[in-house]
């Protein structure tokens, strides 16, 4: 498709939207890469450590027992991290994976606000608010 802003396709053209700087794209791509690397490193190390610590445990046990439930309690999670519980590091890897797109949204919000792009700042802020509502309100509500 080749749409000229002044073509009949757009009978009442508005000014072109503010161009999103290349640096914003690069920063978001960098956040994705870093988040994935951190998550994969944590998950790899923790899976190896978990299999070393519980070599004879059955798959049925792990299907019916979710160690992450215990780590939803933040003091317990911190304690297990400090004591070197490998399942706590598995949970940390999962948190890193889920947090990556959220951090990408936050980095975008910062970049748009910095460049004074009000429309994108508003949109990105709304998406971030929805994500936080999901985590802090909807999740605990339906739990």
């Amino acid at each position, binding site marked *: *498709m*080749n*749409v000229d*802003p002044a073509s009949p*396709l*757009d009978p009442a053209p*508005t000014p*072109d*939207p503010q161009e*999103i700087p290349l640096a914003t*794209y*690069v920063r*978001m*791509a*960098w956040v*994705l*890469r870093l*988040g*994935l690397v951190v*998550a*994969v490193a944590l*998950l*790899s190390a*923790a*899976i190896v450590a*978990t*299999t070393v610590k519980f*070599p004879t*445990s*059955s*798959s049925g046990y*792990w*299907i019916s027992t*979710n*160690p*992450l439930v215990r780590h*939803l309690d933040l003091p317990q999670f911190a304690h297990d991290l400090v004591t070197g519980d490998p399942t706590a590091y*598995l949970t940390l890897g*999962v948190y890193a*994976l*889920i*947090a*990556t*797109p*959220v951090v*990408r949204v936050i980095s*975008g919000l910062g970049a748009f606000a910095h460049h004074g792009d009000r*429309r*994108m700042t508003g*949109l990105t802020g*709304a*998406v971030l608010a*929805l*994500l936080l509502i*999901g*985590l802090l309100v909807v*999740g*605990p509500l*339906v*739990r």
Partner: protein
Amino acid sequence: MDLVEFVILLVLTGVLAGVVGSLTGLGGAVVALPILVVAFGVPFPEAAGAGLLTVLATSSTTGAAYLRDRLSDLRIGMFLEIATVPGALIGASATVFLVHAQLSEALLVALGVVLLSLIPGTIARGRQPRTEPPAPDAVSRRWGLRGAYHDEARNEEIRYAGGRTRPALGVAFAAGMVSGMFGIGGGVFKVLALEHYLGLPMKVATATSNFMIGVTGAAGASVLLVAGYVNPVIGGPIVLGTVAGAFTGSQVLPQLRNRTVRWLFVPVIAVLAVEVILRGLGVA
């Protein structure tokens, strides 16, 4: 089986899901989910939680390249996320409610039906006649839903503008619901919103869909996580396998004919989907 065998088999499942998901364009979760349910006997909500983790991993793997090439349209992607994120939150909440109401079997039947519904679009992908893009509507003009990208093959800058924003938002909301409810990326539906309704070029639609999938997946995963349905011992190995598989798939993709690959693997996914339905009906 013991934990070591379990982890190895989960990683191999992830590799298969990553390769087949990237070669068919269906995404890793569509392959991993039915295998987890049928072969490993993982309950539906935990399988959906693992599925969303693979969605997040594949989105981060490929999303970085699309962003670097400026193929993902941030403005349009963020605009549609206003619809996909609430959809994912409602979909994931519905899953939790249905599981609490002892209706996991109904979810399995619905998952099988959703998987089967993805197949015709996958087979026909790229063969539909290109229709005239819609004219930008008032919402599109107000939010500046237009952009441009450099097409390497044609060596020219392609400009585009989004139209039919209301139906596109509706489809995006439904895509988010499907993603949150069943633990899949729902990329097929997001591309439908972006390409068919907004009228974006296919490359931009695919890249923007990938951009959106990560945020939608995070929304659904956060609800399932707090509800206790994201099990890292199941999801972790699947994620590692999927990342390796998706990377391998992207390397071998240029050497394979897409149509051949689809005809090879799509029947396998169809059989798995039927197995999931039968399991939901208590037949298998």
